[in-house]
């Protein structure tokens, strides 16, 4: 039996329906958390001195936008960390694994179900940020936001970071035996991208096009390998019986 997108779609639709009715995911993870992440960059945008030099302004806007990249890095981590161990704890994993679904199909369905709302939220928040810049920021700041590489970097890094966060979360979820431990570990595993953002904020690392391209290449490779790596770690026997023979 070959790879089936019908089975992937069945998992995806089920997950999206489940999120839709899950108040914690809808209210906290997908609404409040992103709003928290937009607060700081918006404040920086609106309080930036218009008379500052263009390089200083550019750096400040760059750092503001890096905050927004925390949304795809952090928001999906708790949801993806729940994806396998959560199903196991609520007793729904065994009925799913009894069907002809392959591990790869199950994992792709789970990942898509996290990445789609994450991208919708992240790009919506970015759109809100751009709208605030266009409507309320000083013209000098506004042109600095819309000029240069800020927007392409944001557009490219959002799915790449989300992919990293999701595969790490699912990998931890597939090997964990407790939901809370999985979610905490998943947040910890997402510290590297957060650390890079912080180091840029403190100017230990200077943001540059070269650095951005390098990071994007690394993330792209990790995302591409993530699916296969997590599928290889997905041990049905351990997940069902709790032990390995």
């Amino acid at each position, binding site marked *: 039996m070959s790879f089936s997108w019908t089975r992937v779609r*069945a998992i995806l639709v*089920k997950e999206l329906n*489940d999120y839709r009715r899950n108040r914690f995911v809808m209210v906290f993870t997908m609404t409040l958390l992103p709003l928290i992440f937009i607060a700081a960059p918006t404040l920086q945008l609106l309080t930036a001195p218009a008379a500052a030099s263009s390089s200083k302004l550019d750096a400040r806007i760059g750092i503001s936008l890096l905050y927004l990249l925390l949304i795809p890095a952090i928001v999906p981590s708790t949801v993806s960390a729940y994806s396998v161990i959560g199903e196991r704890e609520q*007793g729904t994993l065994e009925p799913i694994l009894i069907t*002809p679904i392959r591990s790869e199909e199950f994992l792709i369905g789970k990942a898509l179900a996290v990445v789609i709302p994450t991208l919708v939220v992240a790009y919506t928040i970015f759109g809100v940020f751009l709208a605030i810049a266009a409507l309320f920021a000083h013209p000098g700041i506004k042109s600095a936001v819309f000029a240069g590489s800020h927007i392409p970097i944001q557009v490219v890094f959002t799915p790449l970071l989300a992919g990293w966060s999701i595969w790490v979360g699912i990998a931890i979820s597939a090997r964990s035996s407790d939901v809370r431990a999985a979610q905490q570990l998943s947040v910890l595993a997402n510290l590297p991208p957060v650390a890079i953002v912080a180091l840029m904020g403190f100017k230990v690392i200077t943001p540059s096009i070269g650095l951005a391209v390098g990071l994007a290449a690394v993330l792209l490779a990790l995302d591409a390998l993530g699916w296969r790596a997590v599928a290889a770690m997905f041990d049905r*026997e351990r997940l069902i019986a709790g032990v390995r*023979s």
Partner: protein
Amino acid sequence: MRSEVGDPPPEREPALIVEHLTKRFGDRVAFDDVSFEVGYGEVFGFLGPNGAGKTTTVRTLGTLLAPTSGSATVAGIPLSAANGPAIRARISIMPESPGLYLRLTVSENLRCFAGLYELDDIPGRLERALRAVNLLDRANDPCGSLSKGLRQRVALARAVLNDPAVLFLDEPTSGLDPVAAHDVHELIVSLRERGVTIFLTTHRLDEAERLCHRVAILNTTMRLVGRPDELRERLFNQALEVRVKGSLEQPDAVFDDLPGVNGWVASPSGGYELAVSDPDVAAPAVARALVGAGADILSLAESRHSLEDVYLQLIDEDVEVKRR
């Protein structure tokens, strides 16, 4: 004596062939050297105490766990990891816990599984499955709002969605009240009448006796396989139970040398239990002898050991062996 279920359908190739199957988790043996066959259209009861290896056997045959040794053919496909998706497409397992998505409606739950089996005519299949479990009017209710019995029915509807060649039911009435358990029994009876091959694990002996063509008793190793009446005959001598008013003065003189009677003992309930080779021959002779001895007969009946007697006898033997 015949099982109340009747004969299984005529034999063609078996739906399940299990040969010397063993599953170990490290040093712990879940089940050992298990062999049996289940015919198409047969309802096969798999009995055993808690921890006997019933659920692990089901999970192994359902390709969720890899056997340590031995072989099996499930729905005509050899059991192997590579054949896992193909086997799982042809069977269905209803686990002990329904495992429903409680925030989703009944219909959404079933639709998800219809997609996982890549079924066609999903609305038609959903309607047939829900009609079979009498839940058509609850299709749009969230599963979280259903009682435990109704959730079990949804799980059963989910299990028959793909018209499985073999349907594994793992303790389907576990934790249900008598009314809900009765409903599930009725559903299993209707599946049996439709010719669905059912592998039913349970430790409810009345359930197995009522629903199954044949039963197997597992206690890590396979202890017995057969029709309930065959198992009774294999473990217990045929017997007549006699109750008379008062007691016989010389029971030896009454029962000895009667045709078909091999011996007798006084039963704890005050009557007599006669070991017989053929109840049809022995019963008239016993009646004549009792009347001849001037006894007032209150009852004369064939002694019927239940499946529970068989089960307890075997489990007691296992406990005794372990003690030694």
